[in-house]
C-alpha cells in the first residue's frame, strides 16, 4: 500500500511539473497583456514601459527561469489585475468552490445511491424509469439554462429562494441542486447496474435464503460490493465539478476559483492562471490519492 502511495505521489509531482511548463508556455503564447491593462488611449511609449516593468519584453525562456526561481521560494508572482500576490487571490477564491463542490458531491452521492438502490430492487418499475429519466434529462440540460430557470421559478416567481449570493444556507440550495443533478443521475445509473448484478450473486442469494432483511442486505452487503465503480465515478465527477463550476459560479455570483480562472485567462493575468492551475492540480492529485486509499479499504485486492 505504501509503495503504491509513493508511486502515486511521484507520478503527481512529475505531472505537476509538466503541467507548469505547458501552462507557462501556452499562456505566454496568448500574447502581451499590456493591451488589457493600459487604457486604449495610452501611447506606445507607455505600453513599452509597462512591458519592460513586468518583464514581458524578455525572451520566454528567460521569463520561465525567473518564474521557476520565484516558485522555488513559493512566490507565485503578483496578479496584474489585482496588484497583490497571485497565491492570495487564488486561496481567497478556493474555499467558496471547495464548499460548493463538497455540498454538491454529498447531495449527488446521497441522491444517486438512494435512487440507484431503489431502482435496482425492482428493475422496470416506476422508480426505475424515473431514475433513468432523471439521468437522461440531467445529462441533456445545459447548466446555465437550468440555473436561470431555477432563478426564474424559485426566486422570482415563487419567491422561495434568493436569486444569487452565498451569505445564508438558503443561497446554497439552487446552485447545489443545479450542479448535483447530472452527477446524481450518473451515480444512480452506475449504482443501479452494479446493484442488479450484485443482487443476483450467489452470496446474496444465500443471505436472502437465510432470511436476512432486505434493507440490511442492500445497504450493508450488496452496496459495499457495488461501491467500487461508484467510487471511481465520484472521483471523476468531483474533478469535473471542480473544473466545471464556473457557469454556476458566474450565474449565482459565487466568488470561486472557476470564475477567477476564466477571468484570469481572459485578462492574461498569467500569475493567477499559474497559481490557480497549481492549486487545482494539487487538489485533484490529492483527491486521486484519497480515492486510491478508499479503494484499498473497500477492496482488499488493491492493497496487494
Amino acid at each position: 500500500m505504501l509503495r503504491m502511495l509513493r508511486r502515486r505521489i511521484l507520478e503527481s509531482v512529475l505531472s505537476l511539473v509538466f503541467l507548469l511548463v505547458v501552462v507557462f508556455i501556452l499562456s505566454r503564447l496568448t500574447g502581451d497583456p499590456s493591451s488589457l491593462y493600459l487604457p486604449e488611449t495610452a501611447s506606445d511609449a507607455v505600453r513599452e514601459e509597462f512591458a519592460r516593468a513586468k518583464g514581458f519584453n524578455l525572451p520566454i525562456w528567460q521569463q520561465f527561469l525567473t518564474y521557476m526561481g520565484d516558485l522555488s521560494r513559493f512566490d507565485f508572482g503578483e496578479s496584474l489585475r489585482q496588484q497583490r500576490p497571485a497565491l492570495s487571490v487564488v486561496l481567497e477564491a478556493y474555499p467558496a468552490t471547495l464548499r460548493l463542490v463538497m455540498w454538491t458531491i454529498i447531495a449527488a452521492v446521497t441522491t444517486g445511491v438512494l435512487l440507484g438502490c431503489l431502482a435496482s430492487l425492482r428493475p422496470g418499475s416506476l422508480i426505475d424509469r424515473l431514475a433513468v429519466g432523471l439521468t437522461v434529462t440531467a445529462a441533456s440540460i445545459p447548466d446555465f439554462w437550468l440555473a436561470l430557470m431555477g432563478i426564474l421559478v424559485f426566486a422570482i416567481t415563487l419567491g422561495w429562494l434568493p436569486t444569487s449570493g452565498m451569505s445564508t444556507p438558503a443561497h446554497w440550495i439552487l446552485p447545489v441542486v443545479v450542479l448535483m443533478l447530472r452527477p446524481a443521475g450518473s451515480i444512480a445509473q452506475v449504482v443501479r447496474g452494479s446493484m442488479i448484478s450484485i443482487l443476483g450473486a450467489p452470496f446474496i442469494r444465500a443471505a436472502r435464503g437465510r432470511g436476512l432483511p432486505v434493507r440490511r442486505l442492500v445497504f450493508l452487503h450488496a452496496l459495499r460490493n457495488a461501491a467500487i465503480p461508484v467510487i471511481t465515478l465520484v472521483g471523476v465527477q468531483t474533478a469535473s465539478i471542480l473544473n466545471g463550476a464556473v457557469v454556476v459560479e458566474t450565474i449565482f455570483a459565487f466568488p470561486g476559483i472557476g470564475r477567477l480562472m476564466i477571468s484570469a485567462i481572459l485578462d492574461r493575468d498569467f500569475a493567477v492562471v499559474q497559481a490557480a492551475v497549481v492549486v487545482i492540480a494539487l487538489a485533484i492529485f490529492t483527491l486521486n490519492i484519497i480515492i486510491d486509499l478508499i479503494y484499498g479499504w473497500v477492496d482488499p485486492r488493491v492493497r496487494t
Partner: protein
Amino acid sequence: MKRASFAALSAAFFLMASAGTFAQDAAITIAVPEEPAGVDFCNSDTTAPSRILRGNVGEGLTRRNVETGVVEPLLATDWRQEAPGVWDFTLREGVTFHDGSALNAEAAAKSINRIFSDKVNCSIRAQLFGANKAIAEATGPQALRITMSAPDPILPLRLSSLPISAPSTPEDGVTDQPVGTGPYRMASWQRGAQIVLEQYADYWGDKPDVAKATYLFRPEGAVRVGMVDTREADVATNVALDLLGGDGVLAYDLPNTIIMRLDMQDAPLSDIRVRRAIGHAIDRQGMIDGFLNGAGEPAAQIISRFVDGYNPDLKVPEFDPALAADLIKQATADGVDTKAEMTYYVLGSANPYNPLIAQAMAEQLNAIGLNVKVVSLERAAMGDILLSKGNNRRAILQYGHDNLLGDASLTVNAIFPSSQKRSQIGPEFAAMIDPAVEKANAAVGEERTRLYRELIEYWTNEVIQDVYFATLQGAMKVRPGISYEPNFQTNEIMLLSDFSVE
C-alpha cells in the same frame, strides 16, 4: 368648527402620506456586473471602481458639469494658468478627509505626486496624462502649483477625473482602504461579495438622502434584473436593452461610438472609393432598430456630442446600396482587387448584439460586391489587433470607443497621428494629420474646438480610416420608490447623492 378643523387636519395628513416623502438616512442596494480589481483612487479609471468611488468616496479638484460640459470648482475654488504648463489652484477651506485630516495644499500635492511615483502602479496616469508628467507643490496653506513637463491647456478638465486621496494613503503601493473627501466613506469590502459605503458625517457639502449603499457583484444581467423584481436590490445597472420600455427601466445616452476601423494599407481598402462605399452600404437605423431595440442613433463621427470638438455639421452617410455597389464597380474597373477576402473582427463576448451586428455588416458588404468573413475574438486578442498596424491584414475591426474626459484630444492623440499603432494612415495623410494634431493640442478655448472640428471632419470625409455605425444607449432598472435621473456619465460616475428613496 372643531369637526371642520379635524377634517382639514386629516386631509392634510392623508395628502402628506400619499404624496410620497423622501427618506433621509435610507439604505440602498445596487447590483453591478463587475467587482473592482482594486479600489485605490489611482486605479479608478475603469468602470468598475469608478462607478463606486468617483464623486462618492473621492472627489477631484474640479468637476465637469454633465449638462453644460463646463469645468466647475469642487475641491479647488479657482485656478489660473500662470505660464504654459504651470497652473495655480486655490483649495477649498474647511474640507476634511474621512480620517479627519484637513485638505490643504500639502495633502493635494502629495496625492497628485503619488500617481507619478514609480513605487505605485497607477493606471490613471497613462489614461489621463499619457507621457506628460506633473510636479505638484504647496505654495501656501491652500495654494497649490502644478507644473507639467509639457504644456497642458486642459489640465483643470483632466483633474476632474483624479480623486484626491488623504496624506495617510501608502506611498509604496496601492491601498484597498481609500480615504477621500467625498460624501461617503468606504465602510467595508468583502472580496467577491460586496462593497459598503456609509455617509461621512463631516462632509463639507450638502447631506445626501442615501445614508448607506451596498454594491453587490452580479455578473449575470438576468440575475441583476431579477434582484430588483424580488427586492433583493433597489437598483440594477447595465441591464439588457430588450427591457427598455419596461417598468422602472431607465435609458441613457452613452459617450460610446461603435466604429468599423478599416486597415487601409492593402487593397481593396487602400482605395478610397471602397472605403466610401462601405459607409453607404450599411443600414444603420435598420440595425439599431433590429438589434438594439432602437436604443441608439446613427453616428457620423468618432466622438459623441458630449465631447468638446464634436462637429455638428457632419452628416451620416446615406444608406444607398446602389451607390455603394457603383463605387465598388468603379474601383474594380480600375484594377482594384475588390474580391480579395477581408476579415471582419468583432469582440464576441462583450454583449449579445455585437456578433449579430457584425454578421449583418458583413452581409451588407458582400451584397455590394466585397468579400468579407466574420471572425469573433476574445478581448485580449482583439486588443492585439486594435493596437497594431494592419499591413497585409486586410481587416475591418468593429469596436466601441469611449471618450469620458470630454475633450477630443483624448481620442485624436490615441488614434490619428501616424506614429500611433492604431493609426493606419500612410505618408499621404500623415503630412496633414500629424501637424494638425499638434496644433489643436496646443490651442485653447474656441480655437481649440474649431481645430478639432476641422481635424475630425478631414478624418471622417477625406481619410476614412473609420466608418461609424452608432452611438449607443445604456439601461438600468430601479425599483418603485427610487428616483434617479441617469446621464451620459452614469456608467462611470453614479453619484449616490443623485438618488432619492421614497
